[in-house]
């Protein structure tokens, strides 16, 4: 039954762009559209109010989503009275609220997976990675890093003098990988261990510890601790996980992931506190077994600490494995506690004289 409420309207049928004159009648549960004798029935329940520019009230209906009905102000007033639910945005608000809550929950689960799950899984993953695979990765990463950080020109001669000590320490400590060592140019004092036994020390570290070969060897023993724990591989897996997160967040092209990965390597594979403590512990054990004095490691920490403390603006140059730890003093103390009086220096003066020249200007000129 059509009520006496009848209004002129404009109708787009969704089949052509033509505007058609229509008459609309409002019934208790639906509106009836009469277009030149053709009737369309639209229930209020499935009506959608299109907000926007243009004169008149625009409606669409689930039955024919392409069609648009345009009502004048009188018809709009009558419709608002007959079917206020069409204009009530609460259904849409509820839908959006539910959606946002779902997204927050999903974000929480994904975030937890990446920030907790990935780091937790990185250890077991690293230890189940075949060693020759890790060595290949380390070799390739080392080659890439040395395209960014130049190898010192006398590195080969210096490494020849240092290698016996490294081999002995690696064997004594049962590190599990043959050690490949390089000196690279970088003013900040640092040393880092890549996966698979690749170890590097910077010219800055050599300069800083040029008068204390045992402290220098102490730093290398610390890096051997990372090699033994396969921290490089763990960092790789962690960074790859973070890369995936960035991929999702930024909608990136995969470049973000790669930057995180390479960045992670170049930024000295920043390890967590537990890994650093374990590497300190392993270094002390290796040094003791090799009849060295672990107190030398304490001296290395002190030198690095004083380097960072010289000038506040230099803080960023403190190596990651030191700067990530506000408790450097505790590490110094722990290393001192392990100190022995009768430690033997593994490098003689003649060998050290060659080693300290690895990155010197003199060797560069030659």
């Amino acid at each position, binding site marked *: 039954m059509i009520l006496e409420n009848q209004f002129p*309207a*404009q109708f*787009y*049928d*969704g*089949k*052509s*762009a*033509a*505007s*058609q*004159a229509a008459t609309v009648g409002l019934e208790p549960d639906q509106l009836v559209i009469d277009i030149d004798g053709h009737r369309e029935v639209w229930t209020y329940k499935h009506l959608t109010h*299109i*907000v*926007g*520019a*243009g*004169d*008149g009230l*625009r409606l669409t209906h689930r039955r024919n*989503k*392409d*069609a*648009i009905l*345009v*009502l*004048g102000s009188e018809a709009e007033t009558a419709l608002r009275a007959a079917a206020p639910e069409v204009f009530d945005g609460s259904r849409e608000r509820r839908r*959006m609220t539910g*959606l*946002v809550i779902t*997204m*927050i929950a*999903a*974000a929480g689960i*994904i975030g937890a997976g990446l920030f907790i799950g990935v780091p937790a899984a990185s250890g077991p993953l690293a230890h189940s990675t075949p060693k020759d695979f890790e060595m*290949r*990765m380390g*070799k*390739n*990463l080392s*080659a*890439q890093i040395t*395209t960014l950080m130049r190898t010192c020109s006398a590195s080969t001669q210096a490494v020849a003098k240092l290698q016996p000590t490294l081999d002995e320490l690696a064997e004594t400590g049962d590190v599990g990988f043959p050690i490949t060592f390089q000196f690279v140019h970088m003013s900040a004092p640092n040393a880092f261990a890549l996966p698979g036994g690749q170890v590097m020390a910077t010219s800055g570290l050599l300069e800083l510890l040029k008068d204390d070969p045992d402290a220098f060897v102490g730093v290398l023993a610390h890096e051997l601790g990372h090699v033994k724990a396969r921290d490089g591989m763990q960092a*790789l897996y962690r960074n*790859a996980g973070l*890369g*995936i*997160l960035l*991929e*999702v*967040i*930024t*909608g*990136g*092209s*995969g470049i973000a*992931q*790669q930057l995180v*990965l*390479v960045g992670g390597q170049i930024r000295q594979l920043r390890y967590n506190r537990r890994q650093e403590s374990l590497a300190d512990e392993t270094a002390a054990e290796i040094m003791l077994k090799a009849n060295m004095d672990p107190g030398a490691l304490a001296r290395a920490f002190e030198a690095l600490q004083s380097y960072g403390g010289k000038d506040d603006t230099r803080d960023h140059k403190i190596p990651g494995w030191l700067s990530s730890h506000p408790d450097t003093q505790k590490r110094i103390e722990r290393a001192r506690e392990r100190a022995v009086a009768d430690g033997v220096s593994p490098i003689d003066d003649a060998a050290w004289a060659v080693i300290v020249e690895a990155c010197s200007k003199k060797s560069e000129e030659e």
Partner: protein
Amino acid sequence: MSENNGAGQAESLEVKNISTIGSMLWIGFYTILLNLVTLTFFRFWGRTHFRRRLWSDTSVGGEPLQYTGKGLELFVGFLIAIFSLMLPFAALVLAAQLLLGPEGFVIVIIPLYLALFVLFGIAIFLARRYHLSRTRLRGIRFAQTGSATGYGFAAFGYGILTGITLGWFGPEARIRLSRKMWSKSYFGSEPIHFEDTPEAAKEPVYASFALAWFGTMVAYFAWIGIIIATAGAEGLANGSELDPAAVGYIYGTFIPVALLIAAFVSWHEAVMIRRIVKSLRINGANLSSRISTWDIIELSITNTLLIIFTLGFGFMAAQMRMWKRIANRMSIEGEIDFDAIKQSEIDAPSQGEGLADGLDLVSNF
């Protein structure tokens, strides 16, 4: 209610946008806030809200445009692109990086990145196809056909030519790519034509580009010269550690230079917008644009300030202001016989913009 009730009549149409900054600031505000707590997943819905509002505020001949896209469609498209393309791509790059030596890495990575550049064009084409398919006027869908791959390779080739010619092929490339898009576009059953109309051909595309190119070069090198002559000799030569005052001086002197460059580039940008709009014809009507250099300069400056002073929340409002100016400076001259235009039978994509999202190329509008 619109007066365009009579069926069968041909109509001359006005294009108008009535969006307000407040409404767009609000959408930008809650989109950023919700992005923060949803790992940015809300961005798909925020973008949809923005488009819905922008289109519904834009009318053609008194009838508003309608955006019917959904956030879920964008999200699904993004997931498909991420898992089918972007993550395998990242995995391949990662594997090449870790398992091959530097030479092998380069051999693998160069073709991969070249393919990525082709994908950029494909992504832009597909995103526009989706966007058009979700745009309606008078209940009639817009559509786009054509080969996304062809567009991708063309965009890649034009990009190389533009590089080789130090940018001088750029305007021609832009016109060619616009032609590729628009000449495959439809309003319902009605094709949209991209033609070199006399009005379009009058636009001084290369004169404006020459001013932008030479003006930018001269301004930039003059600025470098001034920096070196006044402060640079000590500050820059001393090495890496610049003092904050020197940095402030460099940025401070660059602001007027940037404004000058913006003025040069704005003329070209206004010319290009007019050139492309005036090339468009649908049914019996030609599109026209009166956008001016001053419009672009004013919008560039005020939009930059809007984004800065709203800490980024105003980004969508800035985009709206640009569209509003373009729309309100646009007119449709001639008549369109709407009776003759039927609903589009071209298949619309079921989800959208995933590749563009995956490559971070997507635009809000």
